[in-house]
């Protein structure tokens, strides 16, 4: 059996711990920690900050602290003066603390003083480091140099669904009175605190995958208090934003210090409502010229038509008067020509008539002369012919008389008369004795009668 245990009550133990602590930690200490949460109770005016220490982003120490009303007010005033913002969550602080122990609430630190200059330097240093790194990599201006489409209509929104920032932003887009239509899609993410960097980066990478569906990325935050916003100075997150293929616009909603994310973003407009109105304004910039164009077209068209009409009218008048003048001029010219033509024609006809008469007279004379001449030569020929015929006739008569004498001399009867005879055998005259055979009868023609005989 074991000896009876020595027991204490819980209170006895906690009082003992308290005594030990008070002996060991009896003074005040300057310590550096991150004030994760301020935990201010407005009613009492006391704050119960949550202090942490991180190594490589992981919390390695954590303690609660008390900041009593009077100290809080004094320190806060000093912060506002030095940092231009109040004492708040998520800042690194150098503070003067004492260690205390309460039997009910346990160990805690009581903050007596916070060095605002330390915090300022620390935050600023971190921010400057990020800026420096991005500039050295040559990507600081990358996103700002992107171009937003004329109508940034399709927006990937990184926010928290039920947050005031998201609701404010989408309200401006969806409830606009001009019927502008936006397409937006929420990519939910933590927007502040330790895990926000990884979460934001993850959603940006998801959006990158479907970037062709969007015109811009919008990060809007609001209503969650200005705590844990150091993430927007994180160099890795800011690098993703700077290098993002789409313009990234921020409405992260803190009024004093611009974060590095805001600086590298295409556009930063503090509040989600302002950012929503920025998009509406883009639509106005497109819509108003279109409306103006519509009006100008109608107006100018009408004016052009009426101007042209009156120009045409003036021209018609001018044309008419020119035509009339020309007509009158030409009419009188034609009249002159007509008169001239008539008198010339009459003259010409008269001239021609005269010459025709002359010609016909001359023709008659010529014909008469010619006829007389022909008649004379015909009667001359007639005379000549008569003489020649008479000469020829007497010549022929003489010839005929000669021939008559010859013929008379040659007549056989005349020869027979002179004693000549003709011997015939068988009716044929014989000129050779051998033509007649002995004993053959011959006939001898005499002037007067015939003798018949025979050859011996």
């Amino acid at each position, binding site marked *: 059996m074991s000896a009876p245990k020595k027991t204490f009550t819980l209170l006895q133990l906690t009082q003992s711990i308290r005594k030990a602590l008070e002996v060991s930690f009896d003074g005040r200490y300057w310590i550096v920690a991150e004030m994760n949460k301020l935990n201010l109770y407005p009613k009492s005016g006391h704050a119960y900050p949550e202090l942490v220490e991180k190594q490589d982003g992981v919390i390695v120490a954590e303690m609660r602290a008390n900041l009593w009303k009077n100290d809080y007010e004094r320190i806060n005033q000093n912060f506002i003066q030095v940092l231009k913002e109040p004492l708040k969550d998520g800042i690194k602080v150098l503070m003067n603390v004492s260690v205390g122990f309460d039997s009910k609430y346990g160990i805690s630190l009581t903050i007596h003083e916070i060095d605002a200059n330390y915090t300022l330097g620390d935050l600023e240093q971190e921010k400057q480091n990020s800026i420096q790194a991005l500039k050295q990599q040559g990507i600081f201006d990358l996103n700002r140099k992107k171009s937003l*489409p004329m109508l940034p209509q399709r927006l990937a929104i990184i926010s928290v669904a039920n947050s005031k920032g998201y609701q404010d932003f989408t309200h401006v887009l969806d409830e606009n009175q001009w019927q502008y239509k936006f*397409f937006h*899609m929420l990519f939910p993410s933590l927007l502040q605190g330790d895990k926000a960097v990884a979460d934001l980066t993850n959603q940006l990478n998801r959006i990158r*995958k479907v970037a062709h*569906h969007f015109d811009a990325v919008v990060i809007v935050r609001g209503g969650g208090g200005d705590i844990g916003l150091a993430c927007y100075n994180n160099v890795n997150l800011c690098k993703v934003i700077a290098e993002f293929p789409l313009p990234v616009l921020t409405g992260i909603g803190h009024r004093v210090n611009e974060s590095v994310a805001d600086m590298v973003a295409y556009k930063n407009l503090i509040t989600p409502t302002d950012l929503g109105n920025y998009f509406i304004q883009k639509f106005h910039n497109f819509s108003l010229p279109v409306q103006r*164009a519509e009006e100008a077209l109608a107006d100018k068209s009408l004016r*052009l038509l009426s101007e042209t009409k009156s120009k045409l009218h003036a021209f018609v008048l001018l044309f008419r008067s020119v035509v009339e003048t020309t007509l009158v001029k030409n009419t009188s010219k034609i009249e002159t020509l007509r008169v001239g033509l008539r008198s010339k024609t009459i003259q010409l006809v008269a001239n021609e008539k005269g010459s025709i008469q002359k010609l016909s007279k001359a023709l008659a004379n010529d014909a008469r002369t010619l006829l007389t001449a022909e008649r004379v030569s015909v009667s001359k020929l007639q005379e000549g012919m008569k003489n020649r015929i008479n000469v020829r006739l007497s010549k022929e008569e003489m010839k005929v008389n000669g021939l008559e004498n010859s013929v008379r001399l040659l007549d056989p009867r005349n020869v027979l008369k002179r004693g000549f005879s003709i011997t015939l055998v068988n009716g044929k005259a014989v000129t050779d004795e051998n033509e007649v055979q002995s004993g053959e009868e011959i006939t001898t023609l005499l002037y007067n009668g015939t003798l018949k005989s025979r050859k011996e």
Partner: protein
Amino acid sequence: MSETTINYARAFEELQAIVTEIELGQITVDILSEKVKRASELIAICKTKLSSTEEDVNQILKELDQ
């Protein structure tokens, strides 16, 4: 940029060019009706773009899952 994005931006530019032409009085009555007709088409394109989008959440979700 999608096809329609290019179209509305071009439509906007062309519309502005026509308005400038008309305002400077560089358009004659002969081509006025043609220009007005074209401008009306462009205005319709621009107005349609202002009041509608063709994006589909489901399609984007599908692509995100791939």
